[in-house]
């Protein structure tokens, strides 16, 4: 049967659907955070949001361990973690974390959030990953339920699936990771050319007609197409919502450098500025209600980035992580850089890691400064920060550097080292995160008992 296109001559495809600036001008000047309304007695509780920050290449042995008393109270963080010291009271450091089913630069990265096993032929790390599970559960409430961001990769492996994927929407379906801050902003708040909604309706009709005809295998492709269309529709609706403009304006007043009418630098030249901008977007996404959770890869799983932008550091991150070899002539090295001693190479490796801790500490500052019902965004969030490798030189698989920050709405009691006699599956932390955000899974990966964080 013929299905005529719905015509919409009044709405040319290139035109912005709404004159947003008028909104901004007319918006209420008061600070309106989406979850401030939750203050109303008997109203819905402020939802707990989650974020995962992945970094590659591990940390040198011993540089994650804090000074703690016998009951696990952290007295002082490890000196390489000094930038995070000011957030000590909000941190939990679990000991002896490991991923039982996948390790290293490739498999460890791909399975960091899935608790699965990496099948390099099928390109499958199992899944959905923990962030996607949460996003799928709350899909109806957010424009980008689970935000996925990565720092733009450099060098070998920059296009490799396993080293560039921590989020899987389903087994064998890696989630696209945005690297361009401007595109992240547009994902959340629109901007750039907007889709023609009448055309989207027509495309959905075409796909539904096709779905009846194709094989089961091909239906998966079509459902991905349909999901993609729906995500664009969700954004259009979110952008057209007056409250969105007000939230953005409020965020700008609180120091987040974004506004609908101000262009964002695509990829800032300075790597620190770049990562800070991406992490600011994470704070904005969670605080504005655009996203329920966010995952960030601070670099790809075997980052060969030259870290010369950090004072007194030379060589690439991955080469530095093999800190016990200073010859400068292993297969990891570039043949030009060499180090005078293990000690100095390890110091540089530490500096790279510490530099990333600074970025994370700055994100936590931001989150603590964004007010919400009875506290801040950080109070209502759970931030998991870690790597899929312990000591980079040994490609260590046990005692993965892992920490949890934030209050998770009271579910987390900070300032503690969680001592463990035995290796603890990272899946138990994922299960705890799922419980904290209100996804009542019974089990995740290999875990049926959540890590005790309260």
């Amino acid at each position: 049967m013929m299905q005529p296109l719905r015509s919409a001559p009044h709405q040319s495809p290139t035109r912005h659907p709404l004159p947003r600036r008028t909104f901004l001008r007319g918006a209420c000047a008061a600070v309106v955070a989406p979850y401030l309304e939750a203050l109303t007695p008997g109203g819905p509780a402020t939802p707990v949001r989650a974020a995962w920050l992945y970094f590659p290449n591990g940390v040198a042995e011993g540089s994650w361990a804090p000074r703690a008393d016998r009951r696990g109270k952290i007295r002082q963080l490890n000196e390489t973690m000094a930038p995070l010291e000011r957030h000590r009271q909000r941190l939990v450091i679990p000991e002896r974390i490991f991923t039982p089913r996948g390790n290293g630069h490739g498999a460890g990265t791909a399975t960091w959030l899935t608790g699965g096993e990496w099948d390099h032929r099928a390109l499958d790390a199992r899944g959905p990953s923990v962030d996607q599970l949460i996003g799928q559960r709350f899909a109806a409430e957010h424009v980008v339920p689970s935000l996925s961001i990565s720092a733009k990769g450099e060098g070998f492996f920059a296009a490799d699936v396993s080293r560039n994927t921590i989020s899987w929407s389903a087994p064998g379906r890696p989630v696209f990771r945005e690297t361009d801050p401007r595109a992240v902003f547009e994902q959340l708040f629109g901007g750039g050319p907007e889709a023609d909604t009448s055309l989207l309706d027509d495309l959905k009709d075409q796909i539904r007609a096709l779905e009846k005809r194709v094989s089961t295998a091909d239906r998966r492709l079509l459902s991905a197409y349909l999901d993609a269309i729906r995500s664009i529709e969700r954004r259009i609706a979110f952008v057209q919502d007056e409250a969105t403009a007000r939230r953005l304006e409020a965020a700008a007043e609180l120091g987040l450098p974004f506004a609908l009418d101000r262009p964002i630098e695509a990829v800032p030249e300075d790597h620190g500025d770049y990562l800070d901008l991406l992490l600011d977007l994470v704070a904005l996404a969670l605080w504005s209600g655009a996203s329920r959770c966010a995952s960030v890869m601070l670099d790809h799983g075997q980052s060969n980035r030259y870290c010369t932008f950090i004072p007194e550091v030379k060589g690439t991150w991955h080469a530095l992580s093999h800190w016990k070899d200073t010859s400068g002539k292993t297969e990891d090295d570039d043949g030009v850089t060499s180090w005078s001693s293990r000690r100095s190479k390890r110091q540089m490796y530490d500096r790279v890691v510490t530099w990333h801790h600074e970025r994370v500490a700055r994100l936590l500052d931001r989150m603590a400064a964004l007010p919400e019902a009875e506290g801040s965004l950080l109070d209502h969030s759970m931030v998991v920060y870690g790597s899929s490798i312990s000591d980079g030189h040994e490609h260590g698989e046990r005692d993965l550097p892992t920490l949890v920050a934030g209050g998770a709405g009271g579910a987390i009691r900070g300032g503690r080292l969680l001592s463990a006699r035995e290796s603890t599956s990272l899946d138990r932390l994922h299960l705890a995160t799922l419980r904290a955000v209100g996804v009542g899974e019974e089990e995740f990966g290999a875990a049926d008992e959540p890590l005790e964080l309260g």
Partner: protein
Amino acid sequence: MVHPGKPTFPHRRVWIAAVPLVLSAGSAPEGPRVGMIDDLVAEGRSVIELVCVECHDGSDAEAGFDVARLTGSSRAAEHLFEWRRAGAMIETGAMPPPLRSGRGGGLDKDDRAAALAFLNAVEREALAKGGAAGTEPARRMTRDELAHALRDLLNVTVDVAALMPPELVAENSFDTNGGTLFIHGEWLKRADVAVRVAVDAAFPDGAREGVAAGFSLGPFLRGAFRRPPSQEELERYGALRASRLKGGATAEQALRATLFAILSSPHFRLRLEDVPLRPAKGERAVSPHGLASRLSFLLWAGPPDDRLLDLADSGKLAEPEVLATEAARMLDDARALRFARSFAGQWLGTRRVGREFKPDPIDNPAMTDSLMADMRDEVARFFLMLVREGRPLDALLRGDETFLSPELARFYGVEHPGGDVARVEAPALRRGLFGKAAVLAATSYPDRSSPVLRGAWILDDLLGTPPPPPPPGASTFDEEAFEEGEERGARAVLERHRASPACASCHDRIDPLGFALDGFDRFGRERSHDDFGHRVEATGALPGGPEFSGPEGLAGAILKDRRVELSREVARRLLRFSLGRSLEWSDERTVVELGAVLEARGFGALISSMVTSRPFTRIESR
């Protein structure tokens, strides 16, 4: 059991010798009689079951290799690739691992022979049972294919690479693999942008109404959807255009909206030319329009032309002779360079040059972007020559003609006859793949050459026998070895490294191959001294084979002793690229057949046999 100091690999030849037994029935098998083989196979099975099961058992088996699940008589062949990995481990003595007491690993001689006989039997069984068409789920166009399709349909050039994110690719795979062509909101949004830019470019100033007047909906839809449009589709887009005109749009505006709608359709962006109504389970022939697109996306990385669509409309394309003739015609077309760039560039890794492999422009002013593009193109044009002109297998490693731009000729230090890219006789050193700068650079680190990378590249990309990944911590060299290297050169370093049995089992195979190319630096320039400043000794050997020297010696040794592996690996990569999926155990039969075609009749026959092969022309629904 002692770790073998100098392992040889006689059994690999046993595997190869076994293959023709299956395929050319009638030729008398040499060696032990069938009954004896059966006994040995049964013994091998029990060796593996008894020894390996200690660690490789059940759902938590080491490396996910559950012996009991894999040895079951009816299932063994279906796990061909796992068995091959196991075979490589057993061959090199890496498995079983040394005992805790420190006693050496590996199987003793008799057990090893039996285990390898079993693995050999698995190979034969897989080839005997295999050959099915395989499933090939629909996929979307790649970023490059979308760019070519927009170009071919609208006659415009759009820098799609600047508008869309790069495709993620699995290690050792191709961007045409449907498994990595993910669809998500951002892809959709940016594909929209690319389409919009292309549609805008199709209306050059001054010719606007003219374009609209000359437009004909039916042919455009046929080109975009790569099949005849349905009546409903004609009406749908006709109605859209009419409603825009009625709403006051100019002819140009209405046409732009129509083009955008057509190029937004899943029928354009997804490869859905061959979607039958609810396919029944089982194997069927790909429809003629499905074949037209399979051919054109393989050889032109874009949509079919009118002639192919006409042949599909009449059904003639289903005839094998027509398919082969069309493939030859398409290879002669300029668009075939897209195929060569994409396939050869990804297979050989040369596409990385100037991208992932990017030397510091300040330290290396000679390595300009244009030179690196010419280096990549030299390999693509060289490969295109092989398939276009039906050259024999040997030409891959010995072909004495090449394609040089003036800049690349200067880089090689040879005369250029003038003009742009010229086909010239290659100097001896530049013959075949081993003399190509892009190959030598792609197998180097950005700042130095690496015999290890080059050797591993030969074993993996050319011979299909990738060395297993190094064990944890294996990248460590002790510093003493390097001090020694400073004194005695790169070769000494790696020799010292190989004195460790754990390293030797693989590096004895890898390093000697790479050293044969040590007369080239990291950019493929000729050199006499290595990165340590020592005189290059470009001698090498295949495992267990005689010593040879330089790229010519390497080519000769491979063409003499590894012809079968080389031709099969070329066939394997080509099949994987064309089908847009990973290969399964049952595809190995096709690989063996196509490899035999390449070996006997060259690259032209390889292409025509491939496009008429069962997996290319048929499809399975499961």
